[in-house]
């Protein structure tokens, strides 16, 4: 196929925020995760662990605890003292209620999801009722000295266990009375996490590195395990209550299981069974699903470790998964101007790529966009003279002027008042229009006017034709400016004619999340990648899947392709060769050549190094459609600048760990 000039960029200084807390919803197989910067993400386990929803954070909104309640409603509480309900359709906080107890350290929902208990800085435990349209204060339970760091409901919903510094209390929910309290008073012992089992056992984990089992009625210690020299920060119990997982500040997680003392005997004890070391820093959150242990750490990693004895067959779920980077594109590229725009949580960076014939370094011109709100999305126009971004409440458009090597950024006045936030921004290839994805499946079309103005042209609304309430999260526009494809949160792909501002057609529904899509500049075929790693090509003019796409579905993709970890986050096309498509995920870059045969399961999928050794005729026999390069890792972005020029943006793991605080010192053998 030939050689590419690769601009290998490693200066994107993204440091993903650490994982603060998690909540797993058993029925919907969804995991909600909050990061230390207040961002909330929802992972759909049924769609190959795809990060389905992301709600960017806010400087003033920290999230200390997350709960699913009343079915599929998600609540968060944090040090601001508010209980926040998240709107998972419009991807923003829906409403907040003040807890009136100072910063909230913990929150727990009872088994049927009708009540929330919060533990506050002032030592109080408050109950809230989950009602349609919000939460309602119900009562205060007895107040004690010391912040309530963790809470757990008894499965029957009659009692609450609360852990604070030096104390574990069990509270009767109806009377609000307190039962005998337990704790040590010698040294300050922080109870970090607590669980209340239906048998009446209270499990606590504390800053001394102990996991302790208490009998709540008598208040006696039944069992104590010291798992670590540092604190045990998090704890989670399986639904059957026969297994727990704990996470320590040394980055290790341990599984405990309730096992018979003798084989076949009745007497059972908690035994520490499996240690795992997947993290380098604090494991602040753990979750125990029926088939896997999930841990999230301050090193920003989400680790899903399947329990092999619970997995019935070898498949996607039976493999260890690690996620560090969001399943979203944070980089946008101005192909013509050779600019890269990096999106951070609170600022943007614009860089110019260098060239080989001139001696020059890349330039950066970070527009000053500081504010308390985090950025939802951003984009740079292909010509490089427009930059747009959106936060939860504001939409900004900038005009960039290049004078030689210097850059001046000027705010465009009179930006139309649109329904905000925007979830995705996309500039037309002639830089004349900006597409703004909004909620309820609508897309605003904004015309960009020289020398620095804009006008709201039209709003296309999916809601009118499909009734979706979900926000649009991905956009793709065609090079000829006639078509626009939009994906809303219910995974429907709608295609609009931009000539008539009319709905053109809908891509047949596929039961998986769309991870990336793009419209081919020459053929107007829409190329879609799904989170189960399937690839589809849909002809917009003909309103049907193309012959190639049908052929792919008939013969099936390679097994190793389908078992890949991370979703494809960007699709680009070779402007000169219509059969070549560039795809990438975090671990690989692939040029898909549609003119070549598909590999079957017996052929080598990643065969570049083998091909290099072969003679020309042998090579021709071995060629297949997927040309995969794994040289660039972890890859956050890759794009074709022109036919023979690639840009890749990497974020080496070493660079991230260098920016994290030093981990807990651990003695290693032989050092």
């Amino acid at each position, binding site marked *: *196929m*030939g*050689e*590419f*000039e*690769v*601009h*290998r*960029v*490693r*200066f994107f200084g993204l440091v993903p925020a650490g994982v603060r807390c998690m909540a797993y919803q058993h029925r919907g197989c969804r995991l909600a995760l909050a990061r230390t910067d207040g961002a909330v993400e929802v992972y759909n386990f049924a769609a190959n662990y795809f990060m389905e929803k992301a709600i960017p954070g806010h400087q003033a909104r920290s999230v200390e605890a997350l709960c699913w309640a009343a079915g599929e409603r998600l609540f968060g509480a944090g040090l601001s003292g508010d209980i926040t309900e998240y709107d998972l359709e419009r991807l923003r906080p829906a409403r907040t209620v003040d807890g009136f107890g100072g910063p909230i350290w913990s929150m727990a929902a009872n088994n049927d999801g009708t009540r929330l208990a919060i533990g506050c800085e002032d030592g109080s435990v408050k109950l809230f009722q989950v009602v349609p349209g919000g939460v309602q204060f119900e009562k205060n339970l007895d107040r004690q000295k010391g912040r309530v760091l963790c809470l757990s409901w008894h499965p029957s919903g009659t009692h609450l266990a609360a852990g604070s510094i030096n104390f574990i209390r069990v509270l009767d929910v109806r009377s609000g009375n307190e039962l005998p309290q337990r704790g040590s008073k010698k040294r300050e012992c922080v109870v970090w996490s607590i669980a209340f089992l239906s048998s009446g056992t209270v499990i606590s984990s504390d800053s001394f590195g102990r996991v302790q089992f208490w009998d709540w009625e008598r208040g006696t210690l039944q069992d104590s395990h010291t798992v670590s020299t540092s604190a045990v920060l998090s704890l989670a119990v399986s639904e059957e209550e026969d297994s727990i997982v704990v996470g320590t500040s040394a980055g290790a997680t341990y599984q405990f299981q309730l096992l018979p003392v003798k084989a076949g005997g009745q007497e059972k004890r908690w035994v520490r069974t499996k240690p795992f070391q997947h993290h380098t820093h604090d494991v602040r959150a753990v979750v125990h699903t029926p088939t896997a242990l999930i841990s999230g750490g301050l090193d920003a990693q989400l680790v899903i470790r399947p329990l092999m004895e619970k997995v019935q067959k070898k498949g996607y779920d039976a493999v260890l998964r690690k996620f560090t980077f969001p399943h979203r594109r944070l980089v946008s590229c101005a192909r013509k101007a050779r600019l890269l725009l990096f999106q951070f949580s609170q600022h943007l960076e614009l860089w110019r790529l*260098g*060239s*080989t014939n001139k001696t020059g*370094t*890349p330039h950066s011109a970070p527009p000053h966009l500081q504010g308390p709100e985090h950025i939802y999305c951003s984009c740079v126009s292909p010509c490089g003279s427009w930059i747009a971004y959106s936060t939860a409440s504001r939409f900004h458009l900038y005009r960039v002027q290049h004078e030689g090597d210097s850059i001046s950024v000027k705010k465009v006045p009179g930006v139309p008042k649109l329904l905000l936030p925007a979830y995705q921004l996309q500039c037309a290839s002639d830089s004349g229009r900006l597409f703004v994805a909004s909620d309820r499946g609508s897309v605003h079309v904004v015309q960009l006017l020289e020398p620095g103005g804009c006008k709201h042209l039209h709003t296309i609304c999916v809601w009118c034709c499909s009734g979706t309430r979900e926000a649009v999260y991905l956009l793709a526009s065609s090079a000829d400016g006639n078509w626009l494809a939009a994906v809303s949160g219910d995974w429907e792909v709608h295609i609009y004619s931009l000539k008539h501002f009319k709905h053109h057609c809908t891509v047949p529904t596929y039961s998986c999340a769309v991870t990336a899509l793009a419209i081919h500049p020459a053929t107007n075929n829409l190329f879609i990648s799904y989170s189960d790693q399937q690839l589809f090509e849909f002809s917009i003019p003909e309103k049907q899947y193309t012959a190639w796409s049908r052929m792919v579905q008939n013969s099936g993709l390679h097994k190793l392709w389908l078992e890949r970890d991370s979703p494809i986050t960007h699709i680009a096309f070779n402007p000169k060769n219509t059969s070549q498509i560039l795809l990438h995920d975090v671990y690989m870059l692939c*040029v898909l050549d549609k003119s070549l045969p598909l590999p079957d399961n*017996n*052929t*080598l999928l990643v065969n*570049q190094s*083998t*091909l*290099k*050794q*072969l*003679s020309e005729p*042998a*090579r021709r*026999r*071995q*060629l297949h459609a997927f*040309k995969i*390069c794994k*040289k660039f890792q972890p890859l956050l972005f890759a794009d074709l600048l022109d036919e023979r020029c*690639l840009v890749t943006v990497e974020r*080496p793991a*070493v660079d991230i760990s260098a920016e994290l605080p030093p981990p807990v010192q651990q003695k290693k053998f032989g050092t």
Partner: protein
Amino acid sequence: MAALCEAFTLCGLGPTGGVGLGSGLLALEPGADPDHVLLTDRGRTATLFKVSDQKPLGCWSVKHGQIITCPVVCNFETHEYIAVHDNKVLRIWKDKDVNLDKVFKATLSAEVYRIHSLPHAEPLVLFRGGGVRTLDVLLEAPQQEIENVISDELKTIFFLSLCKYKLEQQELSNPLCFTAYIKKQIITLLCLYSSNSVYKVLIPLQQNSEEEEQTLSKSLLLNLSISGSVLKGTSFVVLDKDHVAVLGSLAASECLTIWNTKFQTLQASKELPLGTSGQLWCYGEKFFFTHGKVLTVVIYKCETSSLAAAVGKLKDSQTSDLSSFVNWNTLGDEELLVSCQSQQSVALKSESKMMVILKPMPCTSELHGISHFQDASTAAVEDELRQLLSKAQRPDFQAAIGCVISALINRCKADPMFYPRNFLVQMIQKRELSYSLCPDLMAVALEKKDVHLLQICLQRFPDIPEEITYACLKVFLSISDDYLERTDVDLESVISYIDIEPNNKEVKTEVVENGFSTELEEDGCDVTGMKETHMMDSVEFCPVGPQKAALLNAVLHSAYSETFLLPHLKDLPAQQAVLFLRYLHYLYVKCSEKINTTLPGVLSPTISQIMDWMCLLLDAHFTVMVMLPEAKRLLSSMHKFVRAQVRFYSELNKIEGSLQELQRIKCQKDSQAYSIEVLELI
């Protein structure tokens, strides 16, 4: 997997039994409680039974001279019982009523055929003339006129929607029993014909043209034949979407059978030696039928069939099912098949249709002379099998395939002309088979010298015995290259390093990277320089043809245990051993040319496989090799090559530190923030 469980007697039906007074059973209807049934005899009495307790709860009878003409049903809404006696007199009563003379009575204008009662619906009264009324409409005006819609000549069926359809006429057979259910706005009518098959008729629920008489086409759902003999069904019920139960007579005795309609297989059967009345009812996972002079209840279970359930992989599966299944060796055995059938073995039945195809291999001796006919039959069998296998994937497919292949092989053995090669190749390539699943397959292929099949087997089967591996090796080495050129062998493992164009022996362009060169060799302690270069030439070119090389690669690729292979390997003729060793030497040299010491291509042997086989072969033939003059040159060349390699690696060890430093520098270079590089994609 459906199964019949325990049976018990609900009540006696004889004159002494108290019920029915010997006049037999009219019908059985469900009672208000799931555990209750209403039994109506052909005389005057209706009895309510509690099935689990096997005792009657109530009994009602009409006056002498009157006769109940229509089965008593229960109105599920009101918990009342409805009966018709003397064709026209309707009676409705409750549990607490004792005397039927004193309960509600209505005399109708037409003769009632049946009353249908369904949960959550008003009971429907079907008149003998075909008219239908709901009970409440009827009771408003009992004397209303009832239309006559059935004409006797036609076999017509009436539905509650009052549409009239005509069924396709079937020659020589009559419908015996009907049943129907509604699913997705379509009425599915199942119909048992006297031709011993069950037909399915789909009737859409749209009432487009009520006047016109539509003719419905029917499709064959199930053929009630068990390995040749035919079950003469008398009545049947639908259990779920895949299962029906048929009561009928097989050969002499009557039996109750459960059939899977999806797979066309018999799932369970129970012999009823005392005879039945031919009626079968089924309420709440229980069959009811008369057996001899008693009303018998049989509990059944009906679950989806799966292999996982059979071999115990499925959770909560019952271990008792296991025993009837797992002996794979006996699966193909027809005698056993028959005996299994009589034991109601459920697993084997699922293959019965396939066996039916394979079994009529009538007198193979007759077909011997007529070769073209034999060919046709091979093709026919292949076709038939392919069609069968192209049907939907089933959970117990793997066992079925093993069974089919064993049967095919058995026939191959019996009849030398029969050899469905294409089908076998396809089977091995597509399905995850193993040697133990079809043990005789490779033996037959060896006999037929079908090298392609053997190659695929060696590549795919994980569990080939060493004896067979050796036999394959021997066959491969003994077949001439000329013969092989004409056969179809998968060359994928060799095309990457052997030039398959025969006349294109051009100079090798690849750079010798891994430390071996003739110069290095020169400084050794050899004396015969001329001979040396001659030897090198022979290493440059493959000593065997590409086809043979591909076959030998397949042998190298297969798993083996040294202890078991060595005794067999000793039997290899010396000439063949030398040839094989020469090929291994060639591979070894080829491997060492590359930095990563791997051969390119798919399924090509790894260096450790090559080395292991080399050592094994030398161990097995050590004395012979030392004696043979032509082996001497080969051995000395190999010795030199190995020595050169050892020397090269020891040199590499010396500069290990420097190499590591180079590696470190390369890593450092990687950590630059920005670089423009060249990437080559092929």
